[in-house]
């Protein structure tokens, strides 16, 4: 999931011209889980902005329940048909969702003006209803087979691939003593699994061209093609 946190309200107001008519869009998937752009937060944002004198012409969180704002076909239908009346009046759209959602609304409205209502902060696991944390940095070249499923790119503050830096103290990272050292976690896990020999293997440098941006994925039949600066990588599900 894409974790997001709302921007300060005054920053959002600063984006708007005097009298600008705004339509607010939330997301029922990730932003709902982050309490940054689900139904309650989107409705609340409409009220908060109105109180501060902003001209809010409407709001919605595209349904059905749990659907992502970044599913373009659905968002387009909702914004253009279900909420067509309100969205037609709007000068701009305020998006309470991640950066992908912002772009989806741009596409769904055929290029209308958009404003970011959130900062998109990371991709994470929803550990509990009120705690989300990061375990993957979306690098495009996964190496966790050798680390017991724990990602050193993400869990080690220096993204070291071949073991700890020597700065951990009492299992905590030298960069932030309140956080676990990622390599301590990997070591403990491999040891518990009886697979410490995996740590002895040299891990070559990452192929950062697979971490280039922007990247895309195309699906066709039993094939998927990942496009990055590393070139097209097509994987077949035939065999």
């Amino acid at each position, binding site marked *: 999931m894409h974790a997001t946190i709302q921007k300060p309200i005054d920053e959002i107001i600063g984006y708007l011209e005097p009298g600008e008519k705004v339509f607010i869009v939330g997301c029922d998937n990730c932003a709902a889980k982050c309490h940054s752009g689900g139904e309650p937060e989107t409705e609340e944002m409409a009220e908060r902005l109105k109180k501060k004198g902003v001209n809010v012409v409407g709001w919605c969180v595209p349904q059905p329940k749990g659907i992502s704002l970044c599913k373009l076909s659905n968002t387009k239908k909702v914004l253009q048909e279900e909420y067509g009346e309100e969205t037609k009046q709007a000068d701009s759209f305020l998006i309470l969702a991640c950066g992908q959602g912002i772009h989806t609304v741009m596409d769904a409205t055929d290029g209308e003006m958009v404003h970011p209502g959130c900062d998109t902060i990371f991709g994470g696991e929803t550990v509990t209803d009120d705690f989300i944390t990061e375990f993957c940095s979306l690098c495009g070249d996964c190496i966790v087979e050798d680390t017991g499923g724990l990602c050193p790119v993400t869990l080690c503050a220096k993204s070291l691939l071949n073991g700890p830096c020597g700065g951990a103290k009492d299992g905590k990272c030298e960069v932030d003593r309140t956080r676990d050292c990622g390599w301590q976690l990997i070591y403990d896990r491999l040891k518990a699994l009886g697979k410490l020999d995996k740590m002895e293997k*040299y891990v070559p440098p990452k192929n950062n061209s697979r971490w280039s941006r922007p990247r895309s994925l195309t699906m066709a039949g039993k094939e998927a093609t990942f496009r990055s600066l590393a070139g097209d990588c097509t994987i077949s599900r035939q065999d």
Partner: protein
Amino acid sequence: MSKLREKLESGKFVVTGEIGPPKGANIDVCLHDAEILRDYTTAINVTDLQSAVLRIGSLAVSSKLVERHLEPIYQLTCRDRNRLALQSDLLSAWALGIENVLCLTGDHPIMGDHTEAKPVYDFDSVQLLKAASTLNQGHDVSGHELDSSPGFFLGAVVTPGAEPLEPQIIKMKKKIEAGAKFFQTQAIYEPDKFESFIKQVERFNVPVIAGIVILKSAAMARFMNDNVAGITVPENIIGEMSETPKEDRKKKAVEITARIIRQVRPLCQGVHIMPLGWDELVPDIIKESEAQ
């Protein structure tokens, strides 16, 4: 050929020192520090933006040492350079007459004075060692041939006091496989603990140079104990320091440091003295410890 390599390969005990390039445009002070070390050390480490604080670069200062017929150990960290810059700086170093390179991960920018800097870490220290070894063999890390190759003598670091120690030893072995020919360690204050570390790494047959940080005060000892991983200054040493009147501290520092050197000497192939500004004590320490 590098004198450091020559001595270590022939089994001689070495003393290395360390200077930190200044924060400013004038390198006279650190060259002066290097001069103090001239007669007492085989080679001198030049730190690379130590503690992630902006300073003059280690490449420039290492090159200045070469000009003065002093032998540098050029420290190179992965914090600020991607693989192109790392390899290019290595080739530049060779062209400037630098042979010894200490390959390090580097302190994170958040520890220094440019906390908003983008940390690079395109390579880690093991990958950097491997890259330097690859250059030695006439190729870059992408497999392209070089028109001539360097002949670096490569070193790395290890923290003998790390807890747990096992991951450090696993990484040490990987560093050796990647080309490390010597190790310098985190500061040692407990010779018996160091001995048990040495017993575990003897089988690697790679020279270990024990890190020696001159202890300036009891407060410094307590600070390191609380904040620096792998360093424990024992209470009796802290006591010795705190009982010493301020004017006698330097004398005491010489005594303690020389004693630790004498204790670790039979266990390893050299000592690496980090004076942290008390460079003028190094000659007395060396004489008193009979390290040379």
